[in-house]
């Protein structure tokens, strides 16, 4: 069976189901979208904490991750050569807003970063151009942290994503990802900064917030009366996505970092900090992956037809 006919058979089967899973975001080339969303979120968080802790390598990491996220988004698009057209509908489309945010962020970083890390750059970080770059990147960063959850909330066809908590949850992921990126960056430069302890404290606090928000979202989906949302939760906790959820999100993203943090596995140091960051980020990736793949469309047959 060719790839096309396999996909066709799959679609025909899906169309017959009451609970049709969405496959466009997350399967096949759709995986690039998950990677793009993940990288861009982490990038914005890394930039934020790089600014807060005045940590240049964190800013560089943010820039590189955002560039990677942009490329992943392009790889996902059916028509990447038309990407610039995504600027056209900023009035209503969150994807347009995200695109503008990413463009602002990258352009601002290009103005602000080089004078910060390279000697003899034509302009200084505290020049007018440097400040302009700082402002653009900061504005872009805010958009990137905020917009992503709204992309999902605006997806009326997928009740599980349609939760008002989703944007807040995605903001928390961006913060958790940003801390993770900084922890890894410190190890790469083999330089634990004095802010490492504060970062770990913030990581613990943000992780606690993520857990509470996620639990609330699951509870809302289970009790909200929408069968498609309930089905999504089932897919996540006991269905197709369960292995990624328990293995990736819970074990890799939560249990292992907490065990490392407790000092039971290895003596605390730069390497352990980096491992915490790496596992935490991997866990966030799986969280996004499972949430996207667990998306189930609203059933089409109205109840009055089924039970008449």
């Amino acid at each position, binding site marked *: 069976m060719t790839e096309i006919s396999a996909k*066709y058979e799959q679609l025909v089967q899906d*169309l017959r189901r009451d609970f049709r899973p969405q496959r466009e975001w997350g399967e096949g080339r759709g995986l690039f979208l998950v990677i793009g969303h993940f990288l861009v979120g982490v990038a914005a968080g890394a930039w934020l904490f790089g600014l807060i802790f005045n940590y240049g390598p964190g800013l560089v990491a943010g820039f590189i991750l955002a560039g990677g996220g942009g490329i992943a988004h392009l790889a996902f698009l059916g028509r990447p050569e038309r990407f610039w057209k995504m*600027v056209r509908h900023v009035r*209503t489309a969150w994807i*347009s807003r995200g695109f503008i945010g990413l463009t602002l962020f990258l352009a601002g970083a290009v103005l602000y970063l080089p004078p910060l890390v390279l000697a003899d750059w034509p302009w200084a970080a505290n020049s007018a151009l440097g400040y302009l770059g700082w402002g653009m990147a900061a504005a872009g960063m805010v958009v990137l942290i905020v917009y992503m959850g709204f992309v999902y909330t605006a997806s009326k*066809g997928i009740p599980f994503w349609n939760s008002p908590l989703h944007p807040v949850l995605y903001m928390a992921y961006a913060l958790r990802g940003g801390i993770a990126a900084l922890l890894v960056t410190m190890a790469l430069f083999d330089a634990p900064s004095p802010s490492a302890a504060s970062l770990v404290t913030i990581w613990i606090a943000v992780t606690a917030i993520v857990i509470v928000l996620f639990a609330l979202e699951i509870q809302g989906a289970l009790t909200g009366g929408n069968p498609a949302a309930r089905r999504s939760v089932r897919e996540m906790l006991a269905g197709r996505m369960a292995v990624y959820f328990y293995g990736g999100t819970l074990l890799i993203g939560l249990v292992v970092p907490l065990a490392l943090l407790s000092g039971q596995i290895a003596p605390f140091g730069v390497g352990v900090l980096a491992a915490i960051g790496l596992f935490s980020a991997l866990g966030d990736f799986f969280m996004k992956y499972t949430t996207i793949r667990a998306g189930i469309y609203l059933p089409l047959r109205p109840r009055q037809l089924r039970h008449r």
Partner: protein
Amino acid sequence: MRWGMVIDLKRCIGCYGCQLACKAEHGTPPGVYYARVLKDEQGQYPTVSNISLPVLCNHCEDAPCIEACPTGASFKWEDDGIVDIDHDLCVGCRSCMMACPYTNRYFNDQPAHYHQQGATPYEAARTAHHQSNVVMKCNFCRDRVRSGKPPACVANCPTVARIFGDLDDPTSEVSRLIKERGGFTLHPELGTGPSVYYLPA
């Protein structure tokens, strides 16, 4: 004016005529269905009955797919309320597919034919204007409608279960049927304002 459709579930026999007529009219590739028929069973043996629900794009008044589209490729014709896609603008991001609560949009990811040897001359003619890697959906056969003909699914329905007309005109047949026979839309709770109504079976 606002074009709309009424589908009489009492008359529909689930013959798939509309689905085939649509495929013939638009030459949609495998995996793309502008019109399709859902089948369901109801009751318990021995009093079981089959129910058919033909579905297509609802040309929603407040269309979430248009809101979600970042390029403006998904748009509404101001003069007749038809929701359409400008394929030259579509980047294939598929957010409209996630936004449509009626799952009536399809991603045409590569040129595909029904026959192993490739497109037949008829298919080639029908698909000449298709683009791959973009999203496709029903446009109420706008070209036919503008030339005074009904959409292909309406013209080919053997039981006359589909009626097409102006929802803004209170004297039109569609408006009258909706009023007299209690026409309903799918998922009215979402506030999308579908232009496709169903008459109870």
